[in-house]
């Protein structure tokens, strides 16, 4: 049967502009040709690689011209409220009836994330009616021309992403947190923004039960990376999140190999240091079992980590860090006491620069809120943080790796 839906003989028109974009780019969702003052629901649906369904929705009322603009108008309810141009993405959550503990993360970064956005009549029970119109958006982690290369060399495993163009490029070593295997999407996105980015796999299953050797990172990862023809060796940075930031911090402070290349080297990380390690330079994963469980049965390592920090012999000598640093942390981070440690880091750096008076020490910048995944299934405050911090991270990277007065002075 041909029908136009519950409204009228003319169907509404739903458009997404742009329909293909990188995941950190905004889009405009517009519905036209509705009757004026018509209650409708905008619904987004994504079928993940793990075969779960994620959705978000907002309730709207069309204006006198029969238009709903997600960019301009207010959502009256749903998974987000208020004026939220990207609400249909960041407020996504598993559909009712899904299994527990899901997290939206893309593993295959060579294909886009497909999001179907549809408009339904009414607010309550909008799902009972077939959509009036729908459109598909592609959200990409890889810009056209970005090359993805599997690396398995001298025991180093990971994935390298190279931007299009002649190169060479400023470069990032990307260290993820613990327990999730190799995640490539941040590296893919950074390569799409002009950086060679190496997503290093340093927590393979054979390493989980042993201490991960510091040397692994230092000799293998950095040395291999710095000798790659597409890498500018004196413009290398390190990003770490969670466990990765701890590793990054240590590499920056203690590595003798890195010190040799450190003249003109700039590195930085985000998410504040979460664990101070002891001086024999090995990372001990055996501490991590001392977590506690809260009332929702979710694991938190915050309190035991605070005890660890309290003991100064556990602390990395932050004063040894000789480059600009960006710390991004979540003020409500239950996983690690990032705020406390960020404060300690800031203090240590200030103290260090006063006693040593080195003009090279650029000190630190602290930014609140943490980054896990852009526009992927989290609360409003968290998403605002993600948008804000990602923008600031890209600016920080551009300032220090693409264009830095201190680098120019050394050339």
């Amino acid at each position, binding site marked *: 049967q*041909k*029908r*136009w839906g519950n409204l*009228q*003989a*003319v*169907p509404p*028109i*739903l*458009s997404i*502009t*742009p*329909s*293909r*974009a*990188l995941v950190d*780019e905004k889009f*405009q969702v*517009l519905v*036209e*040709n509705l009757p004026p003052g018509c209650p409708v629901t905008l619904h987004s649906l994504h079928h993940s690689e793990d075969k779960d369904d994620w959705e978000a929705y907002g309730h709207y009322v069309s204006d006198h*011209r*029969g*238009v709903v*603009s997600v960019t301009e108008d207010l959502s009256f309810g749903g998974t987000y409220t208020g004026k939220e141009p990207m609400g249909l993405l960041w407020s996504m959550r598993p559909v009712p009836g899904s299994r527990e503990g899901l997290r939206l993360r893309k593993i295959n970064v060579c294909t886009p994330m*497909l999001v*179907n956005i*549809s408009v339904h009549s009414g607010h309550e029970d909008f799902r009972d009616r*077939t*959509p*009036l*119109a*729908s*459109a*598909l*958006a*592609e959200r*990409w982690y890889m*810009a*056209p*021309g970005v090359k993805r290369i599997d690396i398995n060399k001298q025991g180093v495993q990971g994935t390298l992403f190279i*931007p*299009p*163009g*002649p190169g*060479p490029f*400023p470069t990032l070593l990307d260290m993820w947190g613990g327990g999730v295997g190799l995640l490539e999407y941040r590296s893919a996105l950074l390569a*799409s923004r*002009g950086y060679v980015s190496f997503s290093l796999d340093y927590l393979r299953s054979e390493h989980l039960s042993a201490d991960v050797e510091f040397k692994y990172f230092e000799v293998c990862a950095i040395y291999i990376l710095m000798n790659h023809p597409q890498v*500018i060796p004196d*413009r290398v940075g390190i990003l770490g999140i969670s466990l990765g930031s701890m590793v990054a911090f240590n590499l920056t402070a203690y590595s003798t190999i890195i010190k040799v290349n450190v003249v003109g080297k700039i590195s930085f990380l985000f998410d504040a240091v979460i664990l101070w390690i002891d001086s024999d330079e090995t990372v001990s994963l055996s501490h991590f079992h001392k977590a506690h469980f809260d009332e929702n049965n979710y694991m938190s390592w915050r309190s035991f980590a605070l005890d660890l920090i309290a003991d100064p012999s556990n602390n990395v000598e932050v004063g040894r860090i000789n480059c600009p640093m960006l710390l991004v942390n979540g003020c409500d981070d239950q996983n690690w006491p990032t705020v406390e440690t960020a404060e300690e880091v800031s203090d240590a750096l200030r103290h260090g620069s006063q006693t040593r008076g080195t003009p090279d020490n650029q000190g630190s910048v602290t930014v609140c809120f943490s980054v896990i995944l852009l526009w992927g299934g989290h609360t409003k405050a968290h998403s605002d943080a993600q948008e804000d911090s990602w923008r600031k991270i890209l600016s920080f990277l*551009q300032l220090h*790796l*693409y*264009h830095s007065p201190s680098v*120019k002075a050394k*050339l």
Partner: protein
Amino acid sequence: MDRKQCCVKLSVQPSRGLMDEKFIVLVQNALPGSQLTIRALHQCEDGHSWEAFGHYTADTTGTINVSEDPSIGGTYSGVEQMGLLWSFRPIPGSKSGLRMRKKNIQTPMEVTISVYQGHQTEGFADLVPFSGVAVERWYMAPGVRRIPVTEGGLNAALFLPSGPGPFPGLLDLWGGGGQLVEYRAALLASHGFASMAIDYLTAKITMETGKMVDNQYFETAYRVLQQHPQVCGSKIAMIGLSFGTSITLKMAVYSEVIKLSAAVCISGSHVQPVDGSVEEILRFFQKNGEKTRFSEKNEVIWRDLLLPIPTDPSLKVNVGRLQCPLLLVVGEDDQNWPSQESALDIKEMMARAGNSHLLTVLSYPNAGHLIEPPYTPHARSSTFKTVEIEEKVMCLWGGQTVEHSRAQEDAWKKMVVFLRENLYGGRKPTSFSHL
């Protein structure tokens, strides 16, 4: 390489866009005041390479924004946000008479945009750019489906927009070169119209028997579209370019079967033996073949074949009987068809008949015959083979590049609005900021 410029940053946003969407090309971190060339390179399906470039000067922050800053030389000048696409021309040494047309519209057009030191005009292949990015330009939006149509002997392709539908329908016809040309229909489907591109000159029956198709061929196409479960049968329009205009006007006025809600006629004429078959119309044109002229470069000019516009009513489609809105798109420098003279005559006929409220004419000074979707590189002439003649000729289409490109952008925008108003009906559409 000049180390100081080694980290010039080039970005194009969005890096993946539809063919009619704009992009912003941005250069950052260049030496303030430095001279740079931004160049686009594209290799098309038949292997030919095309380039476009602009000469810029970085400002005091080391930035160039192509949508705000003027190019002071190259294949385009002035502030031209999309100049890197519409001013494409074959690279030096290419053969003459080329025209850029995409056949496989399921893959994107790939363009490499690079930034070079200095104001370069040639020898780009031997230079190393500071930076380069890859850009994709798509005819099909995500979710648009392509369905081949062969029933009733049709050689056609139906493009359905994403979504449940039903959608208004569109029959899309090109001109005398024949073949199945799909890109405009694919792009219109990306705007919400179920669009069927139809080959009516080189269909199976014609290739096998040499016979031209009859009226029933078009009526079959119309019926297939109308009966599709995702098409709103009462809202179907037709769009034709060049000879496609002849068919469109014929069907709009005389067909008992085809009832159009709107018609768009680009670069064409109403002059033809009234309700003649495709065969008869072609023979009529051939009869006037001695009126063919040649330019100083020996390019074929066919606009005189239908001039002067006849006064004999049996030689013109009776547009006074038209019952649906008609949009005429005219390039005033059209050297292939007398589209401007025809438009004037159509206007007069409709005024006399009292249905001129149905008519909208878009007339563009210095635009030529090939009024294509936005940013399509302008071909003032190209090699062309019609179905009636054996060899290829160098055909003069006309038009001056800058004005022709502006005409394409403007006509497309207005055409989509016209189709929306007449096919989606009701309210006036609002935002088309992406066009």
